[in-house]
């Protein structure tokens, strides 16, 4: 199938595509350069791998790249043929399908966890069985208080020891601190980018990073590449503001939570034609996190618990709603588009809570789009487009 990546004339998008390509290339090339590959569950911290000079491979995220390229269905179907239920998340099934196909870089170890979903947990167990490789489960607590941070810190420490032992490598405290200093700087720069996105009009489009502003922090956290990328984006945003080279903006939209990689054309159409600028995506939202390279594992535990997608599902819904409240205020949101990814229980069941809160507390409308994050069989693009049009007619 032909590539379906919506490309626009943007230096940011060009640089992002290079970053993503290099990231996955490093996993495919790892064996040739004598490096170990670790299959990581969605949103587990990449810093664990970089501390040991190993290469993280996130199968669900790679599945997202395949979805953008229009080639993910064969992996999803392979998982279904093997016995995974049709109702299971398509991102999770793409991970199982990649393992079954043998077309991904084989893991030397697997790190798994539960958040964001039970299905992911079971599939990563299967990956370890399939490849007969060592597997460590990082247990994430269902809260973010001091006790939870302490517990997760212990889990991360065990995970590092496990990787070092599995690879016969030495764990260096100094290297961990270096990695965490890079991680802290990337977080800081990501926050700076987010601050720039708050400007009215916002200098950046969501489609420039396919809705994935979190990618470098989450999957390249602990590398110079992530730091350099955010610094580049921040500089480009400042240039646009300075020179008045800012895309037109009629509405300020919060897209929540995940951005469907199989119909990015909707985002492009929204932002370029409708001038409805997506100024934040809930999947990638992170508050300011207390990070100190001198306390590397505590900092990493905080980052893992408090930032981005896991923080939306990892704790009772009250935390979740507080985060929405903050984003709506900070980014001066006009409307919310909520993509109810059919495979995700956590996302879908929050629809009513979020919608009611937005209406009652902010009088902000929310459009719910049903669909599937990767699976092209379940994405009625034209229908979604019609619903978006109706929604904006109502807004006007």
């Amino acid at each position, binding site marked *: 199938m032909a590539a379906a990546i919506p490309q626009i004339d943007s230096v940011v998008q060009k640089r992002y595509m290079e970053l993503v390509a290099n990231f996955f290339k490093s996993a495919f090339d790892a064996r040739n350069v004598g490096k170990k590959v670790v299959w990581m569950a969605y949103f587990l911290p990449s810093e664990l791998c970089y501390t040991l000079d190993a290469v993280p491979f996130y199968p669900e995220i790679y599945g997202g790249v395949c979805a953008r390229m229009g080639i993910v269905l064969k992996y999803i179907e392979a998982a279904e043929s093997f016995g995974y*239920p049709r109702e299971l998340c398509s991102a999770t099934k793409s991970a199982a399908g990649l393992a079954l196909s043998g077309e991904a870089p084989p893991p030397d170890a697997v790190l798994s966890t539960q958040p964001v979903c039970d*299905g992911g947990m*079971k599939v990563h*167990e299967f990956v370890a069985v399939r490849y007969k490789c060592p597997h460590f489960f990082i*247990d994430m607590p269902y809260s973010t208080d001091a006790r939870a941070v302490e517990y997760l810190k212990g889990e991360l420490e065990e995970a590092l020891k496990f990787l070092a032992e599995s690879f016969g490598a030495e764990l260096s405290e100094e290297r961990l601190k270096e990695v965490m200093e890079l991680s802290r700087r990337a977080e800081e720069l990501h926050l700076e980018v987010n601050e720039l996105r708050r400007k009215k009009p916002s200098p950046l489009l969501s489609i420039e990073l396919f809705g994935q502003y979190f990618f470098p922090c989450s999957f390249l956290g602990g590398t110079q590449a992530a730091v350099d990328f955010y610094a580049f984006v921040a500089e480009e945003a400042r240039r646009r503001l300075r020179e008045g080279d800012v895309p037109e903006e009629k509405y300020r939209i919060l897209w929540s939570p995940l951005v469907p990689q199989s119909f990015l054309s909707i985002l492009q159409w929204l932002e370029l034609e409708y001038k409805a600028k997506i100024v934040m995506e809930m999947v990638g939202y992170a508050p300011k996190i207390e990070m100190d390279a001198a306390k590397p594992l505590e900092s990493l535990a905080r980052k893992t618990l408090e930032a981005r997608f896991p923080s939306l*599902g990892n704790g009772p819904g*009250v935390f979740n709603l507080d985060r929405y409240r903050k984003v709506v205020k900070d980014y001066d949101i006009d409307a919310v588009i909520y993509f109810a990814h059919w495979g*995700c229980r956590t996302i879908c*069941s929050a629809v009513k809570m979020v919608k009611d809160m937005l209406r009652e507390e902010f009088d902000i409308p929310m459009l719910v789009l049903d669909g599937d994050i990767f699976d092209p069989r379940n994405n009625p693009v034209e229908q979604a487009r019609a619903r978006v049009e109706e929604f904006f007619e109502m807004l006007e």
Partner: protein
Amino acid sequence: MMLERVREVLDGREAVARSWKEQGKKVVGWICPYVPEELIHAAGMLPFRVMGAPVTIVKGDAYLYPNICTFNRVVLELALGGRYDFLDGIVTANVCDHIRRLYDAWHFFVETPFKLILSLPHKVSENAVAFFRDELSRLKSDLEKLAGVEISDAALKNSIRTYNRARELLRRIYGLRREEEAPISGAEALEVVKAGMFLPKEEYVALLEEIFESLKRRDERYEGSARVMIAGSDLDDPGFVKLIEDSGGLVVADDLCTGSRYFWEDVDVSGDPLEALARRYLSPVLCARMHPYEAHIEHLIKMAEDFNVDGIIFEALKFCDIYGGEYPLLREWLKEKGLDIPVLMLDREYVLSGVEQLKTRIQAFIESLS
């Protein structure tokens, strides 16, 4: 007949709770057997398992979403409709994606005075036990406030002993099912276990003693053309088990949270009772949500062998990712170990539906076993 009281309880479980409340005492609902009932019992309150009932889901879809399993949607439907208004509290744990979201909806939309979700680890380690013990300590303190009493270690140990006694009796009753001709059917066994989730435990222990003695003397015997085990997601409908038994199989064992998993393991009565509860309730036997998955599968297969089963019916509620994801692991595990135990995988809804289609598949499976 000995199961009369059991059926009376099951037909009017809310009546049991109301009669308890008439004595001026409180009732605390629990969802999923990861909640240590002993703590509720030690505070002088009645632990009451929150279950569903055959209803049409309307609000459950609107307040959750149709991709949440029907158990959780049915429970929310009942709660929103006032069926659980008699509860003074509700306690659950972050067991699975569905229960976590049910708790959210209950928290926001149902006015139960006390609500708590425990942060439940996914694995057993010393760190995990210490963490979960802290969670149970928080629960204990909240229950003390709710009940207006202090839970002493002695009272808690006493409750643990009562619960262990019930567990022991249930294991004995299950033991009778190892016989070639069992004195109790699978559907009846499920009813007996279920009754214990609503009755005051002391009354339940007395009832189990009576049932066990009667079963030993029972002339009526059950047999089938194949001995079957049921495993998988939440299943509390004896009608489903009866469907298997009416199709020629005899259900002699289970790996269900409404069956053997509920009582298979005791709580240690020596030492710190909160730590003992934390250790027991973190058991991988309780659910496939625990890591490593092998521990649960090994337990399941050991039970299948102990009860000499001919085949396993593995059922998963639609949208249940834990058991939907467990099935390929079970299949690979059996292949790896070279074990030739036939497994039938069934997708099902919480309220029995599509009976004819289910029956056809079950009958074909049982015929293949016999």
